[in-house]
């Protein structure tokens, strides 16, 4: 444990090295970094001991070196929209606000790459790229707040992943500060593929700040598509919708996004529709799933793609969703973010209860089974069901990343406990169904311990890797790995002479 005298010493040292305006210790500053998006008790707050906002790689490195001297935890903070508690300082320490590292260093039009500080938000990066007619097609809903660095550290989801993939497909190179403060370049510069060496980039993708700080990234970018068309198609069941999507991909169409919502999740859109238009939407009673799709590209190709997709879906008993407003509502929530003023979806829907979703990955053939288990597990844990949405997160193939959503009452400790038990049971269920526990929010604070059910002995090897980058366990302790288990891991590295 770090005592107050040490905190004062560390603060003094940080201020000497980085400057007064980089280091904050007042309670109110620390309070602002006390939680993230994850469902937890409304009154819960984990305050860091110190907030540091570095403005350069060198400053970040100096900070980590000082933290190593005192073995004080370092917890990276970017958009604060994580769903797993990864940015929450559960053991106190230093919250590092990465927003200071948000410079776009190079837009390389010839090589179609951008090199930028990891603290830039995805929305801002795309605003800048748009001036060049370019685009970074990683598109999480949280893009107005979440950063490029968090896309790497959390390997989050993106609306266009079925066409462009996600972070592993975009990230070419990174500059990181390891847990010892060493500045390290990893990756293959601007080359898209590489066969040399061992791949360190994938280790940092989804590492949730446990190996080091991702400070700079080089990303693959694309020309901005000229047009886009969006559609919704209703089906009798999720399985029918999945089959239709499989067929769409088989036709050779280039699908830009494909989300399948179950009947309950569809209610989310019908409810907003009723509020806005004061009538029931025109949806047939048999509809129990909706496939939302989009196509991008040149106008003729996009028009053809949409029409062909509708024809194929019709052959497979899919009926086009007539209510354009509902399609628009889906598109607004997933991509444009252009809400009717003053009714942005997120806080408006969270006034009473909090949205929570287990983020499982299941093989396509076991989704129906997973859906049934979801209903049982949610009910068992006393949680109101919000519905399921199947995202597809790998380029050109059915690649289910599934949001199994429920409502959590964060004013009721019982409901919060039920939620975390629900996540655990759902995670184990995913492993039993030959899938994975998490596809977009990671292990964070809450899957520590039981993630061994998925990884088995390979978790030990992950901890060896962690020890190589962070021998003192200061990088985001309590996340991904159990602290007691980490303490037993012993990796000796001969220190390179400087």
């Amino acid at each position, binding site marked *: 444990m770090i005592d107050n005298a040490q905190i004062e010493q560390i603060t003094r040292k940080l201020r000497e090295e980085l400057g007064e305006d980089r280091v904050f210790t007042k*309670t*109110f500053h620390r*309070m602002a970094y006390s939680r993230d998006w994850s469902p937890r008790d409304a009154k819960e707050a984990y305050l860091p001991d110190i907030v540091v906002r570095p403005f350069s790689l060198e400053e970040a490195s100096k900070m980590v070196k000082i933290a190593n001297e005192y073995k004080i935890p370092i917890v990276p903070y970017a958009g604060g929209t994580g769903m797993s508690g990864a940015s929450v300082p559960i053991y106190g320490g230093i919250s590092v*606000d990465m927003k200071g590292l948000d410079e776009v260093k190079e837009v390389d039009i010839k090589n179609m790459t951008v090199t930028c500080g990891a603290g830039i938000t995805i929305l801002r990066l795309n605003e800048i790229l748009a001036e060049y007619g370019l685009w970074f097609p990683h598109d999480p809903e949280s893009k107005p707040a979440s950063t490029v660095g968090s896309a790497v550290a959390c390997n989050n989801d993106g609306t266009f992943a079925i066409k462009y993939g996600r972070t592993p497909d975009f990230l070419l190179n990174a500059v990181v500060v390891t847990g010892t403060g060493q500045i390290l370049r990893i990756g293959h510069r601007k080359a898209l593929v590489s066969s040399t060496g061992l791949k360190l980039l994938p280790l940092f993708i989804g590492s949730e700040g446990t190996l080091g700080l991702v400070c700079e990234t080089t990303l693959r970018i694309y020309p901005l598509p000229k047009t886009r068309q969006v559609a919704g198609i209703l089906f009798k069941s999720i399985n029918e919708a999945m089959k239709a999507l499989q067929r769409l991909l088989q036709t050779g169409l280039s699908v830009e996004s494909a989300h399948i919502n179950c009947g309950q999740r569809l209610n989310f859109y019908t409810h907003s529709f009723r509020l806005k238009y004061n009538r029931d939407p025109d949806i047939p009673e048999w509809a129990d799933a909706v496939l939302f799709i989009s196509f991008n590209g040149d106008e003729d190709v996009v028009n053809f793609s949409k029409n062909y997709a509708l024809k194929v879906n019709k052959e497979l008993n899919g009926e086009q969703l007539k209510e354009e407003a509902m399609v628009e509502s889906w598109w607004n929530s997933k991509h444009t973010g252009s809400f009717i*003023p003053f009714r942005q979806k997120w806080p408006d829907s*969270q006034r009473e209860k909090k949205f929570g979703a287990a983020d499982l990955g299941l093989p396509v053939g076991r989704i129906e089974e997973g859906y049934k288990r979801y209903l049982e597990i949610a009910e068992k844990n006393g949680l109101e069901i919000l519905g399921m949405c199947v995202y597809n997160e790998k380029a050109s193939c059915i690649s289910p990343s599934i949001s199994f959503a429920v409502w959590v009452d964060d004013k009721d400790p019982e409901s919060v406990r039920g939620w975390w038990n629900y996540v655990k049971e759902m995670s184990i269920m995913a492993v039993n169904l030959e899938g994975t526990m998490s596809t977009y929010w990671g292990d964070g604070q809450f899957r520590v311990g039981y993630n061994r059910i998925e990884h088995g002995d390979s978790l030990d090897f992950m901890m060896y890797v962690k020890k190589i980058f962070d021998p003192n366990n200061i990088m985001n302790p309590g996340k991904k790995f159990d602290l007691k288990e980490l303490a037993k891991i012993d990796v000796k590295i001969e220190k390179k002479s400087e």
Partner: protein
Amino acid sequence: MELEKFKDAIYTCNRTRCGFCREECPVFKEKKLESYACRGKMLIARGMLEGIIPESEYEEIAKIVNTCSVCGSCAANCALDNDEILEALRADLVKKGYIDENHLLGINSILEKENPFQLDREDKIDWAEDIKFNKQSPILFYAGCTDSLFYPERLANVVKTLKKLGIEMNYLGSDEPCCGELMHTTGHWEKFQAHAENVRRTFKETGVKTIITHCPGCLRTFRDKYPKFVEDWGFEVLHVIQLIAQKIESGEIRFKKPVNMKVTYHDPCHLGRLARIIDEPRAILNAIPGIELVEMKHIGYQSHCCGAGGGLMAIDYELVGNITDSRLKEAEETGADNLVTICPSCEFNFEKVIRNYNITLLDLMDIIDMAIE
């Protein structure tokens, strides 16, 4: 505590954490620290409500909370009324005695001289010397302090233009009180309430039904704040631009004289995002022959602040300068020859540095004046 009234909203933000308020906040963009963003302030507010934050830090919290132009960008990107919550937070801090001295100077000036600039009350009426008003009119022209004291010629032109368009108005002259916006926005709500009661009495005595103003700050204060602070307010409050836009739509006004200019339009926060008067200025510009309107990247509800509002100028002048520069750069990038706005505070702020940019500043009323034969 005023914050208690917003407890549900504060906990809604606490549980949501979407952060959509953060990126477009002009202050966060400069400071890059969570405590300056609305989302961070909501957690600070929670910390105050729950007693997590000691009162010894309130003075510094007041500085952070006052480092805000109350531009409403955080509210436009949210379902919560963030601007109102932040003003309530200011009010609580003022009630506890954490008062900014520069704000206080302005407020005392309102109490003594009916303007926040410590200038003589009598100077406020110079602009109206040659103008005849109709004391019987049910429409009151409310000149406002900034326009009266810093843009007297403009103000005279505004009234002359309205007269040309057949709008006759009453004016209170040296009896015109300050609207008290500074009192409200800086959290001095007890003083604001007492002041607002006096203003209401003054207005009622004249028998007017409608108040027209050119200043968006005054408009918002009378239209949106007074009804919450005084009983039986009962006045219709309009911006001049709404009147003119109505007359264009009804066909009463048709501009024939061409004004050959390439212009871009800056939505003042109080008029656009906060008062939701966004289409009208554009409808007017588009109705004037010869005007080519080129829009900036950020307009309407997503327009960027000039930095002048919320008493921020008294708190951090350098920060305001950076915010202003960023907006002027965006205006210049449009390639327009003129930056058009319709707010004396925005104008006051822009004109200090506009010489550094390849664009000139105009009030929309100046252009209307040019377009009228």
